[in-house]
């Protein structure tokens, strides 16, 4: 069997049914095999989007998505998508073609050092130089991507290897992974339990790791047990149901004031699967100074990386949460603590009604309508910018809802292809990309892919005619010197959608919004809603970059009174 055929067989062996990709000279043998393989191939219009689609797919199913590109520009185009997945720990197996081994290093046509270029943005990658290696490397790649901390991996596959014969015994040989299971270290479990037991004002901070290990309900059980409110980072949003009374919502740069306040005024932080990104903590030197911190992460190198003085537990969130529950179960349970009473009071102070009516439409109103109208199993993806932050702050991820966003790398253009990947993973669920006009223009060519493959996703464009987040920062921090942020009203997104054979509507009034959202849910094609929003409406509150939680700018609409209005029965622990 030739290398290309073995590669396809290995994909099938791993349970892959769909691959996202774009062909080219150096992957022709592979595509020749895909032709008759029974694999569903989704032809993208740009390789970057193949990676984003595989990423979106993986985030829904929690198993590796597969993307394929050719050598040279195909490989370089993939990199943004792979780096996006790497920062958010999403499993992808990326396959790139490569020039023949005989001419490698000679600057052959479409040759680039994809192996070297990918290295910093993948957990591991392989350059296969012998066809006999194909079975082992493919099996190893899937193992590496989906064990331990999830991450993308990359296989560089020269064209002559694709054509060379693989001896049968190599295909039949059983695979032994190089590394078995993730390394766990629970040696400090008793310290952690002691900290939690002694805590008078504990908080559980949940990051993306909780979502990857599906530990939402277990975390809530722990929270109920120790009477701790739960706050989430951007990546952790949705890992715990946000309609649960103990869940306060997102923290960080654009988090909810109650969550940020409680996180910074508790005495013990139980951090589950978060890497303490600067966007979540604010100024790192100010973060966690007053608190005892239990840090749970699957990746031992994360413990102590951004925040020192922690009790570190290395393991996946699900396992460690259960270890904590088991350790705490026999101790006296707390009920109705003074701390929780205070938190409940504070939560009321942060419960603003953002059903604003304004003309032009205010973005908060759009999210309010989405909260109301999207089904309980809807998948919402976002682009990057103010659209993402409005969704983070106001969108309620309840029931089976999912919220997918590019948190670490912050890749504009992620949301639309990720929505397509998510829809492929979950064809029966309603998938919407909440976009900005700037972000969507980076990847809107994929309307062709969506239309051609009947992947009926919806896109809601918050159209402010500008790169909104940059505009806001220039307004707030650079003295209103607006440099290269105005996009104007070009293009007409409805006509763009129409050109791709997709349905679309303009929305200029609040009253038209619900209809448009319902129309999108019943559409027979991909659907676009172009909503003109107020360019001057800033995403507030904001914790300015490099500042701490004490320096949050609230803005005129925020009803938060500073947190001191509800008396504190709990003194801060030195």
């Amino acid at each position: 069997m030739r290398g290309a055929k073995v590669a396809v067989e290995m994909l099938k062996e791993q349970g892959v049914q769909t691959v996202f990709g774009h062909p080219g000279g150096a992957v022709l043998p592979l595509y020749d095999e895909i032709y008759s393989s029974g694999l569903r191939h989704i032809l993208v219009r740009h390789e970057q989007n193949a990676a984003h689609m595989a990423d979106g797919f993986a985030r829904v199913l929690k198993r590796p998505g597969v993307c394929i590109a050719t050598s040279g520009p195909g490989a370089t185009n993939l990199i943004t998508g792979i780096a996006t997945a790497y920062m958010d720990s999403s499993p992808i197996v990326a396959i790139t073609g490569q020039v023949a081994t005989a001419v490698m290093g000679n600057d052959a046509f479409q040759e680039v050092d994809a192996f070297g270029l990918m290295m910093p943005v993948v957990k591991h990658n392989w350059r296969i130089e012998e066809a006999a290696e194909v079975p082992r490397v493919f099996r190893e790649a899937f193992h590496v991507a989906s064990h331990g901390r999830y991450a993308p991996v990359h296989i560089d596959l020269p064209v002559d290897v694709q054509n060379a014969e693989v001896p049968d015994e190599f295909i039949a040989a059983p695979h032994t992974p190089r590394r078995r299971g993730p390394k766990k270290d629970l040696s400090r479990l008793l310290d952690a339990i002691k900290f939690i037991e002694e805590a008078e004002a504990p908080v559980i901070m949940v990051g993306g790791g909780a979502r990857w290990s599906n530990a939402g309900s277990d975390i809530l059980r722990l929270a109920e047990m120790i009477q701790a409110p739960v706050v989430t980072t951007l990546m952790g949003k949705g890992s715990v149901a946000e309609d649960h009374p103990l869940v306060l919502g997102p923290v960080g740069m654009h988090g909810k004031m109650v969550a940020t306040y409680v996180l910074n005024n508790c005495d013990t932080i139980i951090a589950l699967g978060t890497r303490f990104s600067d966007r979540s903590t604010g100024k790192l030197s100010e973060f966690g100074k007053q608190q005892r911190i239990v840090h749970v992460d699957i990746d031992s190198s994360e413990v102590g990386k951004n925040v020192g003085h922690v009790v570190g537990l290395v393991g996946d969130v699900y396992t460690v949460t259960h270890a904590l529950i088991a350790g705490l179960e026999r101790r006296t349970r707390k009920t109705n603590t003074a701390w929780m009473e205070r938190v409940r009071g504070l939560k009321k102070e942060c419960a603003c009604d953002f059903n604003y009516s304004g003309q032009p439409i205010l973005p908060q109103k759009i999210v309010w309508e989405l909260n109301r109208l999207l089904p309980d199993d809807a998948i919402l993806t976002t682009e990057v910018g103010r659209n993402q932050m409005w969704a983070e702050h106001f969108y309620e991820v309840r029931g089976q809802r999912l919220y997918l966003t590019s948190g670490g790398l912050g890749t504009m253009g992620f949301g639309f292809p990720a929505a397509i990947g998510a829809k492929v993973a979950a064809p029966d669920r309603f998938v919407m990309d909440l976009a900005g006009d700037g972000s969507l223009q980076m990847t809107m060519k994929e309307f062709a892919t969506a239309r051609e493959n009947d992947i009926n996703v919806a896109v809601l464009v918050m159209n402010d005619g500008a790169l909104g987040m940059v505009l806001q920062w220039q307004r707030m921090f650079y003295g209103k010197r607006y440099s290269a942020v105005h996009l104007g009203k070009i293009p007409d997104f409805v006509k763009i959608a129409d050109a791709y054979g997709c349905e679309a509507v303009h929305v200029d009034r609040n009253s038209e919004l619900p209809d448009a959202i319902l129309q999108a849910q019943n559409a027979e094609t991909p659907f676009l809603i172009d909503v003109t929003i107020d360019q001057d409406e800033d995403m507030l509150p904001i914790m300015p970059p490099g500042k701490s939680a004490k320096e949050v700018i609230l803005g005129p609409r925020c009803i938060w009174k500073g947190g001191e209005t509800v008396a504190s029965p709990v003194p801060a622990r030195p």
Partner: protein
Amino acid sequence: MQVLSLLVHDDWGVMQRITAVFTRKRISIDTILAGPCEKEGCARVLLASADPKFPKMVEHVRRVHDVIDVEYIENNAEEFVLVRSALGRKPLSGKPDEVDLELAKEDGAAYVRAYGAM
């Protein structure tokens, strides 16, 4: 001077992966020693640096998929020798004269040696 001793799979790009970890963390490696070792398909890499962050890199280096094991060696010596004797590998370090004396006792065993930077 501080030393990290690594056992790695001898695959394409392994040095590139390891050095990239230090580049990203803004740590300069003063000395690199690398070569094949007693285990088939594996290699040993010795890295030395005076950077105070260097000892904390153990977990970051361990993350590299090709790295099998990492060991941190606190070392203020002027000379460092890794000897392969019948009993396994053995590090020797200290002042050059003392180390050479120790090495002479090993009676012709294979070794790697580094001066100064270590």
